[in-house]
């Protein structure tokens, strides 16, 4: 190692720990520069938060009021092996009805289209086989001594999940962390006035900085160590809490329960609709106090699309007796009675796309506790859910009074989805990425609490649960 020059060593010893008192004007200049930067930074955050809010609202409104033009939706072709589905006209949702008709007219039965013969019953099995092959069983044949009976209508519903209804969750952009809060005991609120003389007093609180948990010891410090020479330190305003804005994405599983005066229809609807996964997004805003409690509100929206397919199976059973007599000298030499039972199956396929979009406006209370950069909390509250429907197929009371599928208008469907109130409970885990940014993940359950309208025979009440991810901007408080 190179030996130091004697002069260097002399001066290093003399000056390494030298001190000199700077004039007070130096700190005044530093404080002014810091204040200027802080104000500029504050405006920058407000502009960014405002941009996110406006952009998110625009996207949400555009989605909610999105075009109802269904031309861009692909419909699933019916899978009936007997009846191909009719094609839609003019891009309207496809509702295919078969042309099969069956009628019963006294002792005659006319089967215009034989869809299928399920079973043949007879009193004489040997003759049954003959009768089955009898040419009179052909379509359109007028048969004597025939009695027909309609044995009933069976409905079956097939709802399939449309691939477009599954939307992947997009993760938020990672942000670099630069600061970390720490949990400290709460501090009385007020204004701490620090002067160079070392006095401290409290006044009504004014907002200054929000994230001060980690500074709690500092807020209560004595001032014996004093400020720089001759420097009069400005007042420090202890904050109450902080405002925040957040952009939320997530998925939730929804299940609709049906209630109303028409119990059969409500049961059919409830059995026909399973759980449905949806992509949700929205904006939230709130205020978090230093006590750990907070409130928030916002707007969340999702859009649901799924194919609807209903197959009504109508079976018509025809029972016919054929009597054969062999006479000899006006006496019956031989007689035979054949009983032929013919079942005709008619399938009616109704299909289309069920489209709904919802907006939820939650009002929630929060509590959270922090540890270093992490925060864990819970929330509870209520949410108002508004549903916007589009015309489409659905189960309803059809002309003959039975439950079947038909295309409903928007107004008819809207009656089924009135404004509802949901309960909200959730757990949150947040990580402070930066002084002004947090990333939050949570599980939220929203059981349907009540419907705000009882119009119509059935009303939907939706229950939801799922995961949410939220990117939060903590707004700096303007001085």
């Amino acid at each position, binding site marked *: 190692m190179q030996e130091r020059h004697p002069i260097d060593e002399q001066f290093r010893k003399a*000056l390494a720990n030298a001190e000199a*008192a700077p004039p007070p004007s130096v700190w005044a200049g530093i404080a002014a520069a810091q204040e200027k930067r802080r104000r500029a930074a504050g405006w920058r955050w407000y502009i960014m938060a405002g941009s996110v809010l406006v952009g998110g609202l625009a996207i949400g409104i555009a989605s909610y009021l999105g075009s109802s033009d269904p031309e861009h939706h692909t419909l699933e072709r019916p899978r009936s092996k007997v009846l191909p589905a009719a094609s839609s006209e003019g891009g309207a949702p496809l509702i295919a009805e078969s042309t099969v008709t069956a009628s019963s007219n006294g002792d005659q039965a006319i089967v215009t289209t034989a869809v299928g013969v399920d079973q043949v019953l007879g009193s004489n099995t040997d003759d049954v086989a003959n009768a089955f092959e009898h040419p009179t069983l052909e379509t359109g044949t007028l048969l004597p001594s025939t009695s027909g009976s309609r044995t009933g209508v069976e409905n079956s519903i097939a709802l399939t999940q449309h691939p477009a209804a599954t939307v992947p969750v997009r993760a938020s952009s990672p942000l670099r962390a630069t600061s970390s809060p720490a949990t400290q005991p709460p501090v009385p609120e007020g204004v701490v006035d620090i002067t160079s003389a070392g006095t401290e007093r409290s006044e009504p609180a004014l907002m200054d900085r929000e994230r001060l948990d980690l500074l709690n010891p500092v807020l209560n*410090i004595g001032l014996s160590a004093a400020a*720089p020479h001759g420097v009069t330190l400005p007042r420090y305003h202890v904050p109450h809490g902080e405002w925040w804005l957040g952009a939320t994405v997530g998925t939730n599983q929804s299940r609709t329960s049906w209630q109303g005066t028409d119990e059969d229809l409500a049961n059919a609807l409830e059995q026909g609709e399973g759980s449905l996964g949806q992509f949700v997004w929205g904006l939230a805003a709130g205020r978090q106090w230093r006590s750990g409690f907070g409130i928030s509100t916002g707007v969340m929206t999702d859009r649901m699309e799924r194919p609807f397919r209903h197959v009504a199976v109508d079976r018509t059973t025809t029972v016919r007796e054929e009597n054969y007599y062999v006479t000899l000298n006006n006496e019956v030499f031989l007689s035979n009675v054949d009983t032929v039972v013919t079942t005709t199956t008619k399938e009616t396929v109704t299909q289309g796309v069920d489209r709904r979009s919802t907006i939820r406006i939650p009002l929630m209370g929060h509590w959270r506790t922090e540890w270093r950069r992490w925060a864990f909390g819970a929330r509870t509250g209520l949410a108002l859910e508004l549903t916007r429907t589009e015309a489409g197929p659905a189960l309803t009371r059809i002309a003959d009074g039975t439950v079947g599928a038909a295309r409903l208008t928007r107004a008819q469907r809207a009656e089924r989805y009135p404004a509802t109130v949901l309960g909200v409970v959730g757990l949150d885990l947040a990580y402070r990425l930066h002084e002004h940014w947090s990333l939050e993940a949570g599980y939220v359950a929203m059981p349907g609490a009540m419907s705000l309208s009882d119009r119509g025979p059935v009303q939907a009440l939706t229950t939801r649960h799922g995961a949410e991810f939220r990117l939060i901007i903590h707004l700096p408080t303007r001085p």
Partner: protein
Amino acid sequence: MPPPVCSAGKAFLLSELSERELVQGCLDADRRCQELLYARYARRMYAVCLRYARHELEAQDLLQEGFIRVFDKLSGFRLQGSLEGWIRRIMVHTAINTYRKKSFQQERFGLEHLPEEPVESVALDQLGEQEVLKLVSALPEGYRAVFNLYAIDGYDHAEIAEMLGFGESTSRSQLAKARRMLQQRLNDITLPVHAGKTPH
């Protein structure tokens, strides 16, 4: 007046705050923490600035600019080394940046004729910090920067050459000339002392 007590019932003094707490407070832009940080290190950093500046006004500008940079760059401080050393490096770099902005011309003062004599240790011992600071501040600009960087702040010639934008040989020659100039001025001061006169 009762001592200030926090909600936990324990009184805190400014001097009890650790570097970590100070840094955390400054990272949250808490003005009192910034003031405390300034109060804790301003005197030593002002002495550093006085060594590099030509006069007090320039030193004050350096100190102000340096602390503004400290607060801006504090998020980069990893709390692993000495905070004072980190602030000192920022002050030195601030001073050097200021120096580089100026049009520096090689200054010649006929130093070739300066005597190369050893300095008695008594000489500096008899001077106060302010007088030693004035000796350094009185050096021509280029010499002062090199001498401060090399002799007091511990940079080597390669680093100095890179910081100041000239060759290592220039750094060496500037240092040698700075030493000789300081030696001559010390002799001027110490001779009257040895002769029983009071230094001015």
